[in-house]
């Protein structure tokens, strides 16, 4: 077995693959636009999703960049207050619903779940295609409403501001979000049925890769939580259009009811965003430590525990809202408890490295970056779960920093790590390792410079959603904006070199990382039907030689 040492790139030390006539793959069995737009191949649909989420990520990123530029100076000078409020609304809505929630499941999950379980496709291929169209339609509809009509409620749509006072396209925006919710549900149902029904012979539940386990847990949350969001947003529309008193006290409604319903969805939604990332990281740590994931069963069960407990902590968003004192205490203790399964995962990933054969290729850099940022994000979650501390930092930049460490720091690191790891499988090409490592480090540094100062800003007293702020906060804001520009570069580089590699990258062997997992046993890129023969599984996941 050839050993890879730290510092060497895989394509340098491996002999280039023998000249070959390319086997028919899902990429080259037809080229027409129709063959892409009407495909039912989960791999092609995954690519369509990649295009969609990349587009929406760019939109959300442009909004974020404009906000960071505004915040360079204390005075509100670059844009007007109204524009700023619309920018953070677009940023939040687009990033949460059109990027983060579909990010890993609809792209890597879509591509890999059938490959990892030895199936030819998802259980409902046409539903899978439909979910992409529903997603694109809903996303573009909302984006149109937000850009041309403008919406300034924030992604949280708090009532009665959203239902009565906001003079903007609230209804059109929520309609789009509701539509995208259906695509989430379609994908989740598809995954659940696929994982139950389409596993290869011999692939028992406890032989499944942890990536599949975490997607299973994610899908359960998607199916159970998304309908609550749909209903809640519909109620806003009902109140706005027909004046039925649901949330507005002037009509006999209760504004806190909205917050309960919204967070009953939106807190589990955080786990929709992070659990798939955890699945990716389990795969990466195992592959690049060349060792079975430590405590496999505990890591798998931790995903399920997070999915269940995640439904019981929504009230920690409401410690200063005026909810009952005793409710706050219960939500606080449950929030401490939900941190435990996440901590268990971090400890198990760390223990996986012990006595491993570790190489620090780009995907592993992202995985270790994920663990670092997730640990910081998770630990600061304890600060906001701590009642008396949350009273102070609630709705401040501390909270902004905390959830960006989880949702951007961790989830985007996992997504990029996964994209690099499976890039050879997806495209049949190798990406340039040097550029990729450089970008990974750049993203990690840029991210920390952007968001770490925001912890300090929040504790010192800067509220979120302020377009103008007190002059004493300027230094930290300038640091944050500087970090954001580094981060932006870090995101642009992979976009360029990955696109470049699809044409000029070296051809990838079937298993460039010498990793375990059924997806590496088929060709790179895989044929339309994934496997020429249905694989039979006779061993545990991650059965690396000790």
């Amino acid at each position: 077995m050839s050993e890879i040492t730290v510092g060497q790139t895989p394509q340098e030390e491996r002999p280039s693959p023998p000249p070959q006539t390319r086997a028919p793959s899902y990429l080259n069995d037809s080229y027409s636009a129709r063959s892409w737009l009407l495909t039912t191949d989960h791999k092609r649909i995954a690519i369509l999703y990649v295009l969609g989420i990349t587009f929406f990520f760019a939109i959300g990123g442009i909004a974020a960049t404009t906000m960071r530029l505004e915040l360079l100076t204390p005075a509100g000078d670059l844009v007007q207050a109204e524009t700023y409020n619309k920018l953070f609304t677009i940023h939040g809505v687009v990033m949460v619903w059109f990027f983060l929630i579909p990010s890993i499941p609809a792209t890597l999950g879509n591509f890999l779940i059938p490959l990892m379980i030895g199936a030819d496709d998802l259980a409902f291929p046409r539903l899978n295609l439909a979910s992409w169209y529903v997603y694109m339609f809903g996303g573009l509809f909302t984006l149109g409403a937000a850009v041309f009509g403008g919406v300034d409620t924030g992604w949280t749509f708090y009532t009665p501001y959203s239902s009565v006072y906001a003079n903007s396209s609230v209804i059109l925006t929520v309609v789009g979000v509701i539509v995208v919710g259906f695509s989430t549900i379609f994908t989740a149902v598809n995954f659940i049925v696929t994982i139950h029904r389409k596993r290869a012979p011999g692939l028992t539940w406890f032989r499944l890769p942890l990536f599949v386990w975490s997607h299973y847990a994610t899908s359960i949350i998607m199916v159970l939580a998304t309908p609550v969001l749909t209903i809640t947003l519909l109620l806003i529309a009902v109140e706005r259009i027909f004046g039925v008193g649901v949330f507005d006290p002037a009509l006999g409604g209760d504004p806190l009811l909205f917050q309960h319903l919204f967070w009953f969805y939106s807190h589990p939604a955080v786990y929709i965003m992070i659990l798939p990332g955890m699945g990716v990281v389990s795969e990466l740590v195992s592959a690049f430590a060349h060792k079975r994931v430590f405590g496999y069963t505990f890591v798998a069960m931790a995903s399920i525990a997070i999915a269940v407990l995640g439904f019981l902590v929504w009230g920690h968003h409401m410690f200063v809202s005026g909810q009952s004192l005793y409710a706050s205490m219960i939500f606080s203790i449950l929030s401490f408890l939900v941190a435990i399964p996440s901590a268990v995962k971090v400890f198990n990933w760390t223990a996986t490295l012990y006595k491993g054969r570790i190489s620090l290729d780009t995907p592993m850099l992202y995985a270790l970056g994920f663990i670092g940022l997730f640990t910081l994000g998770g630990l600061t979650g304890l600060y906001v779960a701590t009642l008396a501390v949350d009273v102070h930092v609630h709705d401040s930049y501390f909270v902004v920093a905390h959830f960006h460490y989880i949702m951007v720091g961790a989830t985007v690191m996992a997504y990029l790590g996964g994209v690099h790891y499976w890039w050879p499988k997806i495209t049949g090409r190798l990406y340039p390792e040097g550029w990729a490592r450089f970008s990974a480090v750049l993203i990690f540094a840029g991210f920390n410079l952007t968001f770490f100062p925001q912890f300090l800003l929040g504790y010192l007293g800067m509220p979120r959603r302020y377009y103008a702020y007190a002059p004493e906060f300027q230094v930290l804001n300038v640091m944050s904006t500087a970090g954001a520009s580094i981060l932006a570069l870090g995101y642009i580089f992979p976009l360029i070199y990955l696109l470049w590699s699809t044409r000029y990258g070296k051809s990838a062997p079937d298993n460039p990382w010498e990793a375990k997992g059924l997806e590496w046993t088929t060709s790179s890129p895989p044929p339309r039907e994934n496997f020429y023969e249905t694989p039979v599984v006779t061993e545990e996941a991650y059965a690396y030689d000790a």
Partner: protein
Amino acid sequence: MGNLLSQASTLASKVDLMLLVLLALSGFFVVLISGLIIFFAVRYRRGSDADRSHAPNTSLRLEIAWTVIPLLMGLPIFVWSAAAYFDYQRIPADALEIHVVAQQWMWKMEHPDGQREIDQLHVPMGQPVKLLMISQDVIHSFWVPDFRIKQDVLPGRYTTLWFEATEEGTFPLRCAEYCGTEHSRMLGEIVVLKPTDYQQWLAGQDSGAASPAAQGEQLFTDLGCSSCHRLDDDLGRGPSLVGVFGSEVRLANGAVVLADESYLRESILRPGAKIVATYQDIMPTFEGQVSEEELISLISYIQSLQDEEEPR
């Protein structure tokens, strides 16, 4: 926290101490995890000749250890902070009561003797201050970072907040709940004075204004409340309101409710919502006829109507 943030209330130093403990706890885990990762990544790098025999794949003992130990480290913090939060939610009986009405995008304050301020609040140092707050439109949030206190201000429902300032000076007040276009301009300041200076300040304010209770008494007559709610006996068409505030009221449906500010407010605006036992649902609504300030005055008046034998 240097010049950027003072510890200007009795709560501030407690919260900061909790922050320090959390920093120590999270610092421990960050150093532990990152230290181990770096150590393993170097020692077990591919190609190194480190001993890899008997590499474990699972260990029940370790799993239990790293489930239970973090839990045991976290629980005391929960208990400690919950106790502090509990105190923070219980308002001392002798607190000075100040009324706050929020609206897009300003804070209106009223002192017990009727002095009014906008976007500024003078308070005495070393004395508990209670804020009874309501919003006229959307949700706002009353945040004084130097005091480490924050409370959302809701439309249609009173929320309360209390603090005891420990330092003289002027401290920023910021709206922390997004409330529309000029959210970031919904600012104010808390001016903490020595108790004697506070009395002097009060005296220097426009003394033409009556106290909220006196204004409420006037309204009580002008709106015709007194024709049904008689003060001397229970024989009116509505219940007497003497001694009602803070008492438990039995309703027609058998339920018992505490007559607090929110109950009285609801009974004025939506009288049919909670009918007092033995009375009829005949009171007209005052929805849209009285402002939030007037409602607070009416409630202050009712609050002042205590039985004579009570020491208030």
